């Protein structure tokens, strides 16, 4: 009788090994993938795509969850399953856009501040400090209030409060890398500052930022939902989750489904992001003992 040993090079086995070692990350990824799929497939999967827009059904107002409307209907008769599914598209888009804008603004500023130091560093960091001094939610609310409330303006408002964190993070990394011998050898060679920043400093300082972004995604989602809940973000008929929760709040005691499903959607999406963020952090922890 021969013993059968599983070959370790089979992709399925390696994947299972990865899953066993990083359960948090895998769980988060699985959840997020589900949500993304729902968001992408919404126009085809949703029972009533028109309900995500301006359609109203006065005779179907506030009906219980049923086979026709698994999540029930809202105060103007729109199918809530549809609205929640479309809400995924909006939420995901907000998170991506905020991270993009905050990154595009914050990272270069941090690189420049950390690499050049001196006066440039002082100026950039003072500006950053000013923004950091405001509580994020308050500042976003203030900006959203000044601009006309909409998803677009809300995204900008959140991004404006978010970029300084990345500047500060990148600046620290960039400053430490700028003194390394391989950067000094570039300067002695006469390589231009632009090239040093782009080809050397940026790639070597980006990792902590990417990790931080994965951890911020959940927070951005909640901030957006909060702002919309307060009426300063998405406006009806946009099916943003926070807005739906706000609309359904007063009906909570009697028409519980109105608030609940949108709320759960926020919950699970935030959890998915947080699990991914935690998982990446765990994976990169140098002190982790990898058991064989």
């Amino acid at each position, binding site marked *: 009788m021969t013993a059968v040993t599983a070959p370790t090079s089979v992709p399925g086995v390696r994947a299972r090994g990865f899953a066993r070692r990083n359960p948090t990350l895998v769980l988060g990824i699985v959840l997020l993938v589900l949500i993304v799929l729902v968001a992408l497939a919404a126009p085809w999967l949703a029972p009533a795509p028109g309900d995500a827009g301006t359609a109203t059904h006065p005779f179907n107002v506030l009906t219980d969850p049923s086979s026709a409307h698994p999540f029930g209907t809202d105060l103007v008769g729109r199918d809530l399953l549809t609205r929640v599914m479309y809400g995924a598209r909006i939420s995901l888009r907000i998170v991506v856009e905020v991270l993009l804008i905050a990154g595009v603004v914050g990272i270069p500023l941090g690189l420049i501040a950390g690499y050049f130091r001196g006066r440039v560093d002082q100026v950039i960091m003072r500006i950053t400090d000013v923004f950091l001094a405001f509580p994020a939610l308050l500042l976003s609310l203030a900006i959203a209030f000044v601009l006309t409330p909409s998803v677009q303006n809300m995204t900008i408002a959140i991004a404006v409060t978010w970029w300084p964190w990345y500047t500060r993070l990148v600046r620290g990394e960039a400053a430490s890398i700028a003194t390394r*011998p*391989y950067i000094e*050898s570039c300067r*002695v*060679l006469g*390589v231009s500052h632009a090239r040093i920043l782009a080809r*050397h400093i940026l790639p070597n300082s980006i990792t902590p930022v990417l990790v931080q972004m994965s951890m911020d995604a959940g927070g951005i989602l909640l901030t957006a939902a909060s702002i919309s809940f307060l009426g300063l973000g998405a406006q009806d008929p946009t099916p943003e989750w926070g807005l739906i929760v706000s609309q359904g709040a007063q009906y909570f005691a009697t028409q519980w489904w109105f608030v609940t499903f949108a709320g759960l959607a926020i919950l699970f999406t935030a959890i998915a992001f947080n699990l991914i963020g935690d998982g990446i952090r765990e994976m990169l922890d140098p002190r982790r003992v990898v058991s064989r």
Partner: protein
Amino acid sequence: MLEVRDLVVRYGPVVAVDGVTLGVPAGPAGLGLVGESGSGKTTIGRAIVRLTEPASGEVTVDGLNAFNAKRGDLKAYRKSVQIVFQDPDSTLDPRMRVGPAITEALRAHAVVERSAWPDRVTELLTAVGLQAEHADRLPHQLSGGQRQRVAIARALAVEPRLIVLDEPTSALDVTVQARVLELIAGLREERSLAYLLISHNLAVVEHLCEQVAVLYLGQVVEQGEAARVLTRPVHPYTRALRTAVPELSETLPAPATKRAEPPNPADPPPGCRFHPRCPLAVDRCRSERPLPREVGGRLVACHRAEDSLAETRG
């Protein structure tokens, strides 16, 4: 070719380099800068490649001034001096492959046209004892000795007049060190290289340099032919340094300095900086800084140089 005149470099209150004058002729030539920690030898090297700005003094290569150069001249100066650092682990960008790293040097000074870059990279790699395939490797896939070779290739790429080698082999194992030193000696002959070798290891300097300058707390204490200075030192500090070097023998080197508080670079002793630890110190040494003068066929900055020389002849 390289001329350093009365160089003074300050780091805040500390005078790291206090009036150093030295020179390196056109290649093949080697000047060794010998000293312990706090001697200022690394600072001098960094000043020559413009990584540190001096408080006063002059650094010129073939007449090109390092610090007062106009726009166009600055580029030319950078092309004429390069540096190789000590730590093989941080001397190369961990995310850049060897080929692109060397190409970056070629690109910075348009040494040859674009189409010739790959060939030039291969030529440089072979010149430092590596193979063309190494161009595709990342630094962590190379050994310490190989990384230092790449660093040397990068420095050679711009065809400099002078290379500053800052303890290029101190962080390498002794067997690897021997091979890299062999490489440097070989390149010196093949390319008529001129270099400034900074090292705390007297034997290494003796093998690779014709001239040597011994530094103590930012000042040159002895300067001259390496063979002469290192095997028959005159200045009491150089003598102490020489006797302290452990040899492959069954006896330990006898400590040759008086026990004293280690020198504080921020508050150096008055007069001759070595006087608290010098077995030959007299009153004059405590108040008057000795200037270099010719004794025993080399320059020595010591009031009692003649007596010290007589002692060695013993």
